[in-house]
């Protein structure tokens, strides 16, 4: 059996997804046995030109992590799509925009200003802000164009499978790779693999009350939560109910942190944040509008909280320009 041709690429991402692939530990050797890796920026040295020279659909599988933040991300996404038989959106950023997409709540100008001018650690008295083209004496310097918003991979190219997670759970990663290597029949195109259909609560062993009531939103940094009781019953916003399972409860169980939603929307849900409002709001323990507002004021960044990983794939996607 010939080896599978594999590509691994990172676009707008932190690199955690690449590291997570290494977290499958010694199984990486099995991967190496089964695959020939043609592109893996974090681990190996390859040039874009090499990819361009490959025949179309040469790569059997590409694991693409990271969101589409700039023109380079987009260019590579298009290129790899052309060169790959199977395009896998790998990790939250590629899947639904992830953390980078939180920047969708701000305009491009605001972001660049913040980073290059306003931030406390920046010294930029001339207030120079990078632009795609900069004329210098002898030539014109080009850098990738910074987009006004962050896209998910699927918003830019056709995607065959989605592996969610920030990062994906190594066990799930191995299951996915094993499935690909085994040559077994793959699930229908467009499927989310490496995650369950049920929400995280299904796996969560914390005790849940029948009649949940929230009289006060509390914050995890101000308290030590009870490890046995549902976070919602403790007044802590947990996105577990609106998030797919499969992560292995890394936050909820091992770190005693409420779920932040990285595994993305359950199958029949179209907007994670909106669903969170629909699910969470009825728990508020008051029918008095003023009191409700008061309770909600304890949580000033609802959009950031509810769309922490899914902004690009939400109904509104971004702040109105």
């Amino acid at each position: 059996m010939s080896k599978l041709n594999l590509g691994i690429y990172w676009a707008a991402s932190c690199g955690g997804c690449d590291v997570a692939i290494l977290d499958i530990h010694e199984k990486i050797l099995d991967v190496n046995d089964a695959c020939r890796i043609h592109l893996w920026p974090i681990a190996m040295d390859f040039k874009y030109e090499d990819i361009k020279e490959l025949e179309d659909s040469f790569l059997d599988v590409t694991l693409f992590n990271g969101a589409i933040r700039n023109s380079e991300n987009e260019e590579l996404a298009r290129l790899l799509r052309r060169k790959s038989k199977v395009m896998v959106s790998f990790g939250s950023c590629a899947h639904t925009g992830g953390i980078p997409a939180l920047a969708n709540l701000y305009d491009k100008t605001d972001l660049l200003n913040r980073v290059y001018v306003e931030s406390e650690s920046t010294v930029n008295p001339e207030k120079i802000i990078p632009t795609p083209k900069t004329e210098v004496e002898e030539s014109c310097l080009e850098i990738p164009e910074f987009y006004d918003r962050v896209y998910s991979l699927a918003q830019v190219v056709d995607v065959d499978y989605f592996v969610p997670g920030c990062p994906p759970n190594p066990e799930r990663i191995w299951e996915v790779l094993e499935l690909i290597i085994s040559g077994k029949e793959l699930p229908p195109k467009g499927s989310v693999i490496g995650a369950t259909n049920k929400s995280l609560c299904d796996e969560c062993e914390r005790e849940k009350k029948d009649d949940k009531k929230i009289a006060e939103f509390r914050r995890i940094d101000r308290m030590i939560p009870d490890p046995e009781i549902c976070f919602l019953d403790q007044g802590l916003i947990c996105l577990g109910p609106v998030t797919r399972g499969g992560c292995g409860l890394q936050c909820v169980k091992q770190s005693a942190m409420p779920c932040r939603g990285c595994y993305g929307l359950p199958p029949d849900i179209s907007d994670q944040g909106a669903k969170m409002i629909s699910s969470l709001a009825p728990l508020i323990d008051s029918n008095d509008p003023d009191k409700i507002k008061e309770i909600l004021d304890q949580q000033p960044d609802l959009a950031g909280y509810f769309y922490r990983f899914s902004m690009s794939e939400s109904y509104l996607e971004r702040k109105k320009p």
Partner: protein
Amino acid sequence: MNRDPKIVAFLCHWCSYTGADLAGTSRVKYSPHVRIIRIMCSGRIDTAFVLKALREGADGVLICGCHPGDCHYQSGNDKALKRHIMLKQMIGQFGVEPERIRLEWISASEGDLFAKIVDNFTEQVKNLGPLNWKETMRPKSGEYHEQT
């Protein structure tokens, strides 16, 4: 862009939809830019419906339910209220004026009031201008390269 506003209204079957029917049987005229969607109870309204409507081109979304205490299903309207307040607190972060979404209690006998609210809300939304969410969100015809 100057066009007629588009408004989606979700009306609960028992009070508000009946109230809107009463406006009809009483031949009360009101702004024709509202599109009514009947649901059984305002408690059925998923926040996603509101965002979906905005995304699909609505400039405003009106939700009408039974008056507090009068819900045909006892307390669905309380849920609608809480979701509504929560969405209003959040939606500004997306640059959407919270005034584009409105919750009103309309009883089965308040046909006149329904018409008044629709007119008033339409005027309010008109003043805010068109939202055109879909058009501004997506770059045109497959070209993902954005204009600077």
